[in-house]
């Protein structure tokens, strides 16, 4: 029979790093708490019959956060054979709090004292022998990052699972509490079938844990008796039962720490000193702005352009494209095949691939910022500002990630505990232009604004942020999202110098998706677009204007006419953008029959320029940036929203808002410049603008919700 080993521990203590090391997989590891939200399974390297379970990081086994519920249910219901409890050695006191709970559930526990290298570097000493004796389980020093000590831990875990040994909790609480717990154990003895867990259940009943009480179905006479015991105890200790237990645990840990930990350094750590400056009241925002400006300037404007130009002009333009063209001509391939490969495939896919180096540089910087611990601080810095717009600081991390790709961005929203905040973040995250939308921005900027295009990219980001903030204010006033943003509590990782390996893996993990997309979805989509645009309904090669695609595009086009791009090519490009946003550029490339259409190709720019006016081009860009994201992101939204209803609300809201914004830009912008004359469209745009402003400024009464705790019957103040 397979042995199941569960990895449990505090958030950000290295569980996923260890999981990857043990199983040889490459799950996403982030440097802020809460990256793993679902449990993940893998096989231990070299052992076919040993399964490793990576569980979400938790601070305790109480049922308050999503992660806690997932982990607790797994441990109690699926009962792994053994738990490896990762303890962050540099923060041992807080980490042991969870340990005191894990040893109570009747599953053998091995402790991996992780990040031991940091402790050694600080000059602190931990007495393993004493610690092991005090806790009643084996303790091993590990460094998941360096892969040291892992074999010892897993060997011990496997041995424990085979011997079916038990870990017996060594700690005792205050006499009053112990008395109460003993009485509860006796009172509910008949209900608990698994005697190993009777202490765990006694404590949970004492704490009035709702989920446990629901699950146990205790009859009312016993319930009343238990309640009397608890109330008596609470009166004695002058606190509520749950706080009593928490305090008792920490008192016990305090005693252990005194015996086992020899701390050399007192006072401020280097990490704290950095925080003094980086999160300083006056300096925090300027530092953040400068950091982000440098990241985007280097990766998009300066270094990014150099490598992208090289990829487009040299790699594709001078080497691949002529080589393939010559090769096909030499072997005497049919004209349609040459057209398919050179115009369709290389034209479309090349447009996307040419953009990969630029994205890689951006991801490289974002990975460094994340790995060193700065990203987690950004949430703290932004909280005060975001709170004014009805969002919490935690919403900022998903948005920052979404500037790379919307899919992980949407997924990162899981760290937001409060349901309404999380849903709102999911709905607005994709407004931030992702890597795949950058080619659209670059195309429009190059085609329409030529020499004076420097402001287009920043304005696109600004538009995205403005829409996030607008949505924050407006949505908070609707019935769906009414209420204050959740309180902000977040543990911050210690600063550390990012490892080259870690950063490069991060960069590759993020960038890989784009290359795979170019080779699969976009490859196929470009082929399909080429076919539909080259053939008529009679399946004969036809002029573009008579093609299948043109007739489909002509049906959709009128929808976009009020936005200024009611021609079939723009309509088709917008629709293909749903497959992947890079496709918008790829589609233009195929449609204009330009092989290797990079977004800065002069021929493509000229063609695009002839299709739009300055205003309609900007409206086109705005619509494509804000409307429903690509299918992959919609899929992520559905997973995170947990159903179609909220997915449709989200995607619908995004598309309607995009339409409204594009309408206002084209109609009112056109009116000002004289490109559009006053008519029904302008009136509609004015009405929409008026409605949006009214939504933005209408007063609303914030309903302060008083939460009622059912367990103790107390009302919160």
């Amino acid at each position, binding site marked *: 029979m397979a042995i199941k080993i569960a990895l449990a521990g505090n958030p950000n203590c290295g569980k996923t790093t260890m999981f990857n090391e043990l199983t040889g997989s490459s799950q996403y590891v982030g440097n802020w708490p809460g990256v793993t939200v679902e449990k993940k399974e893998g096989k231990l390297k070299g052992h076919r019959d040993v399964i490793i379970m990576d569980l979400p990081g938790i*601070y305790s086994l109480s049922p308050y956060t999503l992660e806690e519920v997932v982990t607790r249910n797994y441990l109690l219901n699926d009962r792994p054979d053994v738990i490896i409890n990762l303890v962050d050695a540099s923060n041992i006191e807080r980490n042991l709090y969870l340990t005191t709970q894990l040893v109570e559930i009747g599953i053998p526990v091995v402790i991996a004292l992780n990040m031991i290298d940091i402790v050694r570097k600080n000059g602190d000493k931990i007495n393993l022998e004493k610690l092991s004796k005090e806790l009643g389980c084996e303790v091993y020093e590990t460094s998941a990052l360096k892969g040291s000590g892992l074999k010892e831990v897993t060997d011990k875990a496997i041995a424990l699972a085979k011997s079916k040994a038990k870990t017996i909790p060594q700690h005792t609480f205050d006499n009053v509490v112990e008395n109460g717990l003993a009485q509860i154990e006796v009172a509910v003895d008949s209900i608990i079938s698994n005697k190993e867990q009777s202490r765990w259940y006694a404590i949970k009943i004492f704490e009035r844990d709702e989920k446990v009480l629901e699950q146990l179905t205790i009859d009312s006479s016993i319930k009343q008796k238990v309640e009397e015991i608890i109330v008596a105890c609470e009166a004695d200790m002058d606190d509520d039962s749950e706080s009593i237990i*928490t305090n008792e645990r920490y008192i016990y840990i305090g005693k252990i720490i005194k015996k086992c930990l020899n701390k050399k350094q007192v006072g401020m750590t280097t990490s*704290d000193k950095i925080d003094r400056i980086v999160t300083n009241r006056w300096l925090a925002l300027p530092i953040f702005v400068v950091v982000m400006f440098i990241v985007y300037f280097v990766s998009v404007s300066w270094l990014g352009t150099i490598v992208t130009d090289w990829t487009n002009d040299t790699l594709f333009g001078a080497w691949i494209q002529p080589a393939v063209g010559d090769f096909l001509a030499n072997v005497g391939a049919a004209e349609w095949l040459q057209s398919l490969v050179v115009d369709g495939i290389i034209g479309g896919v090349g447009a996307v691939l040419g953009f990969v180096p630029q994205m890689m540089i951006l991801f490289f910087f974002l990975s460094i910022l994340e790995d060193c611990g700065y990203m987690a601080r950004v949430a703290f810095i932004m909280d005060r500002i975001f709170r004014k717009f009805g969002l919490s600081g935690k919403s900022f991390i998903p948005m920052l990630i979404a500037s790379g790709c919307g899919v992980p961005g949407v997924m990162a929203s899981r760290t937001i505990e409060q349901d309404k905040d999380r849903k709102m973040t999911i709905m607005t995250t994709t407004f931030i232009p992702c890597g795949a939308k950058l080619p659209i921005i670059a195309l429009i900027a190059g085609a329409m604004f030529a020499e004076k295009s420097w402001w287009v990219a920043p304005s696109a980001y600004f538009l995205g942020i403005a829409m996030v903030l607008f949505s924050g204010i407006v949505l908070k006033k609707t019935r769906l999202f009414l209420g204050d943003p959740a309180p902000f509590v977040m*543990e911050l990782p210690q600063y550390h110098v990012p490892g080259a390996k870690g950063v490069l893996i991060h960069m590759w993990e993020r960038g890989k998706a784009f290359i795979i997309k170019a080779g699969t979805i976009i490859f196929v989509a470009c082929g399909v677009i080429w076919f539909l645009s080259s053939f008529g309904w009679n399946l004969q090669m036809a002029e573009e204007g008579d093609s299948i695609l043109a007739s489909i595009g002509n049906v959709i086009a009128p929808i976009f006419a009020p936005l200024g791009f009611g021609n079939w090519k723009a309509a088709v490009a917008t629709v293909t953008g749903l497959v992947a946003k890079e496709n918008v550029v790829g589609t233009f490339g195929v449609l204009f029959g330009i092989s290797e259409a990079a977004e800065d190709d002069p021929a493509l720019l000229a063609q695009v320029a002839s299709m739009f006016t300055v205003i309609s081009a900007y409206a086109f860009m705005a619509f494509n940036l804000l409307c429903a994201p690509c299918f992959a992101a919609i899929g992520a939204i559905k997973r995170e929203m947990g159903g179609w209803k909220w997915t449709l609300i989200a995607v619908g809201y995004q598309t309607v808002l995009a339409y409204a914004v594009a309408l206002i830009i084209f109609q009112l912008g056109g009116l000002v410049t004289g490109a559009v004359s006053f008519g029904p469209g302008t009136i509609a745009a004015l009405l929409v603008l008026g409605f949006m402003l009214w939504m933005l400024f209408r007063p609303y009464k914030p309903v302060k919700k008083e939460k009622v705790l059912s367990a103790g019957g107390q009302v919160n103040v």
Partner: protein
Amino acid sequence: MPLTMASQGEINSIKSIRGKDETKRFLENLGFVIGSKVTVISEIGGNMIVNVKDARVAIDKGMASRIIV
């Protein structure tokens, strides 16, 4: 006094945490229990980063004002 009034760098001991809700429990689980030493590392408009039990925790103003030191 509430933690919001503590000055930067000064080590304080927690006397009590007001309220009786999930937020209080969550804070307690994170190590904000009576007797714990807290140090304010930095503060922006009431939001704070504090060091408690060797961990750095960011909390908003509302929460900081409920922690009495």
